[in-house]
């Protein structure tokens, strides 16, 4: 057998192994459907669901958090550690975005349009955003160490897709979560079929500064 034939045989073996791996992974991949409700059984929108794991190197991605009608859009953004976020200003006025959170402290001085630099989030955890000009503007970035994450929809539901068989810890986070760490974690075993889990978590309402108009003061005596 020539050297070329040996090479061909090895190549075939490698291809077969890789195909089997891929086949098996697809066969045994499953989803975790997550539902999050509060004590009153009300669904919690914009909650972050993620797998408790720390991946050694995460692919960097640039995300956008917009500013429209003096509000951040979206309210909650979940990103992988190392991701950069752009904060374009689509209002025709200037904003001054800042955060005092431990996971990321930064300030974008007064700017309009696309003048701001991207901000890199390289530490996991919650980051509260605000605007110094418009006190009611609030939003959150949640930085995770995994690439398996999702946000809940209006019905408080989200899905972690294509997870290989195995045991996982599923965590949830939301700005208004008042529960202990234990209530925010559930262990799930994936054995080829989809899993449905529900988190019931106490909620502590947080309020943005008041924006709607108050009565114009018509002082009498």
């Amino acid at each position, binding site marked *: 057998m020539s050297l070329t034939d040996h090479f061909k045989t090895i190549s075939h073996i490698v291809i077969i192994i890789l195909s089997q791996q891929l086949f098996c992974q697809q066969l045994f991949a499953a989803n975790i459907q997550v539902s999050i409700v509060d004590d009153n059984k009300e669904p919690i929108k914009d909650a972050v669901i993620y797998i408790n794991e720390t991946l050694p190197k995460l692919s960097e991605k640039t995300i956008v958090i917009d500013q429209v*009608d003096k*509000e951040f859009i979206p309210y909650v953004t979940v990103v992988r550690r190392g991701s950069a976020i752009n904060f374009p200003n689509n209002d025709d*006025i*200037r904003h*001054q975005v*800042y955060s*005092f959170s431990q996971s990321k402290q930064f*300030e974008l*001085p*007064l700017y309009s349009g696309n003048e701001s630099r991207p901000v890199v989030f390289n530490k996991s955890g919650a980051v509260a955003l*605000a605007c*110094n*000009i418009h*006190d009611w503007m609030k939003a959150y970035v949640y930085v995770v160490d995994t690439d398996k994450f999702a946000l809940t929809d209006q019905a408080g539901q989200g899905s972690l897709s294509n997870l290989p068989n195995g045991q996982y810890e599923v965590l949830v986070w939301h700005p208004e979560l008042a529960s202990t760490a234990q209530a925010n974690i559930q262990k799930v075993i994936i054995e080829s079929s989809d899993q449905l889990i529900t988190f019931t978590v106490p909620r502590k*309402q*947080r*309020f*943005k*500064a*008041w*924006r*709607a*108009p*108050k*009565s*114009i003061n*018509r*002082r*009498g*005596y």
Partner: protein
Amino acid sequence: MNLPTKKVLFGTIALLIYPACSHAENSQWVEWIADVEAAYAQVNNLNYSAFSNDENDDDRLALTVVLGRYYQLSGNSRMHVAVEFSTEDYDQFSLMGNTEVGANLGVRHKFGLGHNVPYLQFTASYRHQEVKADPWSNNSLAFNLEVGKHLTDKLTLAASLTYTSVDGGRGEVIVPEISSAVFDQSFWHADIYADYILSANWLLSLNYGRREGDFHSACTVENVNIVLDTMQVKAITSDTIFGGCVYQVDGSNNSYSSNISYAITDHSALNLSIEHFRGNANSLSYRGNNIQLSYNYRY
């Protein structure tokens, strides 16, 4: 305009111009101001009488429009310039109906970066009020200094001090040795405000205000004689609105008010206000209650 008023006015102008010039590189016109309020009120003791048999109540409809713009001086400071138009109509005492045109200029400075950082605001305003009963028409100039702070996500406190100088017309002379310029007045007003967010759509506001200085009161001729006997009246004239006399005294007034706001959207709200006031001038006391429902829109 007297000398102290001029000093305050020129001081205000200097205060406004200085930050505008010092931050000229970063300054820019920003948001427009367009506020509208349509209000219905039940006014108790509209004439601010010290005598219960003289108190007059009425219903009032009011429409106010404020137009203006903010000028961003820096990340911490902004100025606003606005003009205000308002009209009031009364059900029974229609001569109290009035229109008002005013302008105001203010600077607000926030002492740093963050939600809970306190602010200081200075506002100068000028108003011309044209009342259907002509002697009541007046021009007023007011200077207001306000300091405030978000204490928590839910609670905001503010305190303000206002000096107002009113220049009114002269009415008919009815007591020769006493002036008839009842509506030439000056007074101070101190206020404390607390705003408490009850939920995403409901806001409760409480206000305590104290006024010191001149005020006017209208009552029948019989009761005015009691007033003339018991206290120092600074000015007096006849009154066509309530059919007696209107006089000016120096005294104080305390007002306690609460307002509940329901946010319909980020730009509009319904507001219900209740106010109770109690005034004193020498041995006489004045009291009343107001209740107002308004729809407010902000651009």
